[in-house]
């Protein structure tokens, strides 16, 4: 009960000149604080949008300062009546300030549309004034019809009508341009609409009650204040957003620099390791070669066999190092694709490999048609072919066949290597492209290899954004098919 009384009393107080002074003073304070916030941001970033907001909010603050001054002189110096002209001028100035604020808030939309704010305002101001004038005349005619006094109300009416027209026009403008980006759009529209409630109520009061309805006057008070609170909130959020973004930007800049450093170190590491490991291997190969060729004296058969083993193992070690380095490059995505157009038939029709398997009594069928032109990274695709081929050889017994084929599809092309080997169990297929995976551990010993070949294939296929399919039947054979998207060269 007491609270209702208190509120009632307070709202009544707001209706008096003293109350008016309190309201205006608080509004002045709010606008000053908002302006202070924007100006301190502007001194750092010098953005046009902020300058625009400063001009608009300064106009509003000046308006509130003038209003506070007049009200204060009324309250404290009883200078009541003679100020009518100045107060009216001040009210019109407030409309202009509102117009500036509305334009400042929609500035990001104008920027996106490529419209200059000045010419936009120069066009809208007469347009909105014209509409306000027409509407005011209409409202005044309503008052006249009712028999009210036009002399008493024409200023209030036109001021209120102009406020409503300006704010609703810009609220509508934001809604009509909703495809453009504007942060806190809903808050801004809400602030505009709430601001219009006070003049709407006052107009209603004027038209129907000669502005004598106490409850309506009291009810109108809080709205501009709420609206200003929302403006303040939007400005605060805009500035806080900026601060957060700047913080994020600095963070990602640091992260990027760090990543670049790491990537550089990794490159250097790979290149150093490559050099450091390959140097001793080169020595080993050269000296075993010199020994085997008898350049340092005749070599008995048993010693030559031993040297052959050292030689073969040196090759294996070299292959291992090459594979690890390749995989490391592919995985760190360092390995960019160098696309070119070439004939796949020519690439797979390599006598080196066909002769190599002839020794193991495995025949090779090349089902890739002549002139099968594709766009891919030639060197990498060659590696895919070699790795798939070696893999097929490993698991195909003597007398078997390896078939290499290719097929053009609509937006893709297929490349497959099929063998008549031992096959792989279904549940092991998903794992066969993992690093160091061997279907059976004994294979490492019997078949050689370390299980990196297919991991490299997978890496290269993924760089080309291709897919791998495996069909296998135990003791019948395995077919590995790779589906590549048709790429364009550039």
């Amino acid at each position, binding site marked *: 009960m007491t609270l209702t009384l208190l509120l009632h009393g307070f709202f009544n107080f707001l209706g008096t000149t003293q109350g008016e002074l309190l309201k205006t003073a608080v509004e002045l304070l709010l606008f000053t604080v908002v302006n202070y916030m924007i100006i301190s941001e502007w001194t750092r970033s010098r953005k046009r949008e902020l300058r625009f907001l400063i001009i608009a909010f300064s106009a509003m603050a000046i308006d509130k300062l003038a209003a506070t001054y007049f009200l204060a002189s009324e309250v404290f110096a009883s200078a009541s009546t003679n100020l009518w002209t100045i107060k009216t001028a001040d009210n019109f100035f407030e409309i202009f300030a509102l117009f500036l604020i509305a334009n400042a808030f929609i500035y990001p939309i104008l920027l996106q549309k490529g419209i200059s704010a000045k010419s936009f305002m120069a066009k809208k101001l007469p347009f909105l004034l014209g509409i306000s004038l027409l509407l005011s005349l209409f409202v005044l005619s309503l008052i006249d019809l009712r028999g009210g006094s036009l002399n008493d109300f024409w200023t209030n009416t036109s001021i209120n009508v102009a406020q409503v027209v300006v704010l609703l026009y810009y609220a509508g403008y934001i809604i009509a341009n909703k495809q453009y980006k504007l942060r806190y759009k809903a808050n801004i529209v809400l602030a505009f609409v709430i601001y219009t409630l006070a003049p709407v109520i006052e107009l209603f009061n004027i038209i129907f009650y000669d502005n004598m309805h106490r409850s309506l006057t009291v009810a109108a008070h809080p709205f501009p204040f709420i609206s200003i609170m929302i403006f303040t909130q939007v400005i605060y959020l805009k500035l806080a957003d900026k601060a957060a973004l700047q913080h994020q930007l600095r963070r990602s800049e640091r992260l990027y620099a760090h990543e670049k450093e790491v990537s550089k170190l990794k490159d250097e590491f790979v290149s150093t390791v490559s050099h450091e490991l*390959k*140097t001793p*291997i*080169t020595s080993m*190969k*050269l*000296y075993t*070669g*010199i020994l085997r060729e008898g350049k340092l004296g005749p070599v008995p058969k048993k010693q030559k066999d031993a040297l052959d083993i050292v030689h073969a193992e040196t090759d294996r070690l070299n292959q291992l190092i090459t594979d690890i380095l390749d995989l490391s490059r592919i995985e760190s995505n360092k390995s960019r694709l160098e696309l070119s157009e070439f004939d796949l038939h020519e690439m797979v029709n390599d006598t080196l490999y066909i002769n190599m398997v002839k020794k193991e009594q495995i025949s090779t069928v090349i089902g890739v048609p002549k002139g099968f032109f594709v766009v891919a990274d030639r*060197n990498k695709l060659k590696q895919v072919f070699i790795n798939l081929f070696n893999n097929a050889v490993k698991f195909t017994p003597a007398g078997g066949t390896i078939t290499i084929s290719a097929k053009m599809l609509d937006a893709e092309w297929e490349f497959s290597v099929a063998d008549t080997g031992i096959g792989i169990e279904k549940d092991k297929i998903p794992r066969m492209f993992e690093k160091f995976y061997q279907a059976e551990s004994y294979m490492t010993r019997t078949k050689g290899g370390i299980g990196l070949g297919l991991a490299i294939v997978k890496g290269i296929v993924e760089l080309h954004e291709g897919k791998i399919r495996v069909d296998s039947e135990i003791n019948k054979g395995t077919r590995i098919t790779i589906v590549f998207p048709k790429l364009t060269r550039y």
Partner: protein
Amino acid sequence: MAKKKKSILIIEDEVNIANAQKLILGNDYDVSIAYDGESGLKKVRELKPDLVVLDLMLPNRGGYDVCFTVRQDPQLNSTKILMVTALTQNIDKTKGVMVGTDAYLTKPFEPEQLLTAVRKLLS
């Protein structure tokens, strides 16, 4: 009198590899060795060899630099260069061609590969 042997300068900082190369080439060619880029370049100017077997990663002046400098010298017009590198990426090869190497050999290689490459350049 036997025909004068063609001369080869090996610029290689790894003593073992340099000696192995000398063992492989020594029978058919007149071979000298330098162990870093700076002294290698001095020897090239001094000896004017028919072929330089040039390692890429050298102390005191890298292989690219040596190669480029030799190519700039009109007195060394007839000197061929065989670049030896442990790096296989295409970018390295492009860079090599730009500085003017005649051929490439990637480490590790077989004695036979070295002989074939050298014969091809000096034929």
